[in-house]
């Protein structure tokens, strides 16, 4: 945003998405409002969605009249008076709190943002998501207006095809081609669905876009509806995202007021409307046929394809489904041109992709990078490397359908085909970084317990097969693994992949297959040596106290449920491994981190 709007000396913008609120942004908001009301500061207060700087939440950005800005992180209600006094009152930047300043964008943690290229997140953290006027003020709805008043539906599809964008929900199917099928499919009534059922654990970009820039999703849907000939739009959003649901409702209402949704939108004879459907919690509903069943009020179970939704989808009518991130990129493509989008990225994967950096990475948050960046660039240049100075071990990509890549694959380019060849998938874009304290067998067990739990039960390979795989993984983690378990896992994985009805089952074995491919030694260590080198699996570890660092504070003694820890006050303590049940309660209590699990 240039300048600060309506004549005030400064504009103070608070990041107000779920991450920010979870970190305490509501208290900061109250403190800011109170201070500005009482203190007579010459500022305009505003909120914005998530800037993606989750590691520094709550985040406040202060703009001056010239358009320069300073982003402050870790702001608390207590810091607000000082922040306003020094920055707004005296014009002095509080260096210690700075995350990024526009004068020297790469300094501090600024390179987190500078190393990104933001297309989908172009407005996130910059505009108030609850104000359509702010979106219009930066050129919003120009793309839709341009398309509806001066382009044919075919021209819109051609532009999207020219951009080369592939569906960002996970499967990576070319969006332009998909729209073409839906356009050509005969029928008066067609449906357009936005898949906002972000169920992959570890992915939160759709939430951030819906919370931070709901209008770009609306505009993308208006364009898609026009292109394929659908007058009915639906957003299927998880109930776990209350703030996103609230902001979508506001956005839809504002669109009606402006004449962007409803009858004869943008003054044309085209009509299009959008309704929100709240999901009820089922991972399988990310699969399109299961999602449609759930919209129809049934149990969310997939059905075989064909018929494909483009021919027979919701209520038996032609239906086109795209993901939030895909829709959010569409207005940019129409406004800037497909060619400009296609100029970003690799030969077969165009444009940018948003990744959610989480786990043991130093800077957690949203990272949007051009396709073709290497994993190393994303994790180290953007993410700032591993937290706590520990060693990188693996990156888990693509959630329960994805895989874990080791250090040797860090130079793989982020590109649908290259990531798949390496053994993972781009999927929806979750990137969970693991360090040497993460056990890969346990991680595989975790994902299988997830898919097993979420399997809808319709087809046997997925329902029973994932259960059998999980049982094997559980016994390996408990130190009861058998020599033939690795072969059994591989055989089961092949059968489940080949015979499952939908992608949930078809990809469920992936976390096991990639960990077997890259971390087979850990499985063998568990099975043959009864050891968990990461110190994670309770049945295979011993806990001991480092006498060098133990201060003898006794915190561990108090929490030990079996009285296994003894020692004199202010003297190093000892754990009796006969009595220890390895619950790790002491480990989390120890203030000097002296308890070692190995």
């Amino acid at each position, binding site marked *: 945003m240039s300048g600060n709007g309506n004549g005030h000396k400064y504009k103070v913008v608070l990041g107000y998405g779920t991450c920010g609120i979870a970190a305490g942004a509501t208290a900061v908001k109250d403190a800011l409002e109170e201070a500005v009301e009482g203190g007579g500061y010459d500022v305009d207060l505003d909120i914005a969605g998530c800037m993606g700087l989750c590691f520094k939440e709550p985040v406040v950005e202060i703009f001056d009249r010239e358009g320069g800005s300073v982003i402050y992180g870790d702001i608390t209600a207590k810091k607000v008076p000082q922040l306003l006094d020094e920055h707004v009152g005296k014009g002095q930047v509080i260096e210690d709190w700075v995350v990024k300043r526009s004068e020297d964008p790469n300094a501090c943690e600024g390179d987190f943002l500078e190393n990104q290229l933001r297309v989908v997140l172009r407005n996130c953290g910059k505009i108030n998501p609850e104000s359509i006027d702010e979106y219009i003020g930066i050129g919003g709805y120009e793309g839709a207006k341009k398309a509806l008043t001066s382009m044919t539906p075919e021209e819109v599809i051609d532009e999207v095809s020219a951009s080369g964008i592939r569906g960002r929900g996970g499967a990576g199917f070319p969006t332009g081609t998909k729209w073409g099928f839906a356009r050509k499919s005969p029928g008066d009534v067609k449906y357009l669905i936005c898949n906002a059922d972000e169920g992959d654990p*570890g*992915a*939160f970009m759709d939430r951030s876009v819906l919370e931070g820039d709901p209008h770009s999703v609306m505009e993308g849907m208006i364009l898609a509806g026009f292109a394929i000939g659908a007058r009915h739009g639906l957003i299927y959003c998880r109930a776990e995202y209350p703030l996103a649901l609230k902001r979508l409702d506001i956005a839809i209402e504002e669109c009606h007021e402006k004449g962007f949704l409803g009858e004869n939108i943008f003054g044309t004879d085209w009509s299009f409307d959008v309704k929100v459907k709240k999901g009820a919690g089922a991972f399988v509903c990310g699969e399109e046929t299961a999602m449609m069943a*759930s919209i129809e009020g049934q149990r969310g179970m997939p059905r075989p394809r064909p018929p494909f939704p483009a021919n027979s989808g919701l209520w038996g009518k032609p239906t086109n489904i795209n993901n939030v991130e895909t829709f959010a990129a569409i207005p940019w493509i129409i406004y800037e041109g497909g060619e400009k989008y296609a100029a970003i990225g690799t030969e077969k994967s165009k444009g940018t992709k948003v990744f959610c950096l989480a786990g043991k990475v130093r800077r957690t948050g949203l990272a949007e990078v051009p396709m073709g960046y290497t994993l190393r660039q994303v994790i180290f240049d953007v993410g700032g490397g591993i937290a706590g100075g520990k060693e990188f071990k693996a990156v888990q990509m693509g959630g329960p359908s994805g895989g874990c890549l080791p250090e040797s694959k860090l130079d793989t380019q982020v590109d649908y085909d290259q990531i798949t060849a390496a053994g993972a998938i781009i999927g929806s874009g979750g990137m969970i970084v693991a360090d040497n304290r*993460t056990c890969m067998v346990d991680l595989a067990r975790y994902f299988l317990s997830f898919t097993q739990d979420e399997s809808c039960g319709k087809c046997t390979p997925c329902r029973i097969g994932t259960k059998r795989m999980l049982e094997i993984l559980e016994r390996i983690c408990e130190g009861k693994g058998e020599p033939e378990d690795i072969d059994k896992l591989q055989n089961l994985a092949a059968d489940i992949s080949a015979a499952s009805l939908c992608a949930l089952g078809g990809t469920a074995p992936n976390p096991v297959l990639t960990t077997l491919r890259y971390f087979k030694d850990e499985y063998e260590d568990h099975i043959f040596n009864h050891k968990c080198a990461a110190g994670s699996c309770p049945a295979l570890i011993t806990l001991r106290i480092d006498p060098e660092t133990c201060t003898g504070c006794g915190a561990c003694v108090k929490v030990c449920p079996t009285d296994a820890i003894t020692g004199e006050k202010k003297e190093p303590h000892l754990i009796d491994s006969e009595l220890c049940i390895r619950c790790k309660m002491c480990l*989390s209590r120890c203030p000097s981190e002296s308890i070692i699990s190995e």
Partner: protein
Amino acid sequence: MEKECTCSNRFADVDDLGPVDEIISKYGSEKGALIPLLQEAQDAYGYLDEKIMRELAQRAGYQLSQVFGVATFFSQFRLNPIGEYLIKVCHGTACHVAGATQITDEVSNQLGVKEGETTPDNKFTLESVMCLGACALAPIMVVGDDTHGKLKPTGIKKILKQYAGPTAAAEGDDA
């Protein structure tokens, strides 16, 4: 922001069919409205009692098996009442890697209940949920309407204390 008060009698009694009347008149015979119907019923009663499901099935024209089938398929629906505060400990990947198991263990120890159970004083119900989408602040849990991030087992006691006092419910605001 919250209109709803978080005190223990925030839910309607299952003998009061007023909310059912409202829900039926809102959705009538709308095609495919079974899920929103059940969602609103759960909002009103706190859970889906058999009596309420029977009532909804009959009035909206569904087979009871259909209603029960949907209610047991989706994780959002509960068939048992919950305490005053629902504690949802996130077990998404980032939270798992960051030690969500220890968080659940600690909450469980503090409250003396296992997952899915409610404390005898009807104050807390403990649940595990899949990703809540605030992975960057892992591990996280939600108590009532409040999200708490970057948790450590050592900090759980203090957080629970905020909700334990009799006044917290009466004030209904703990943001």
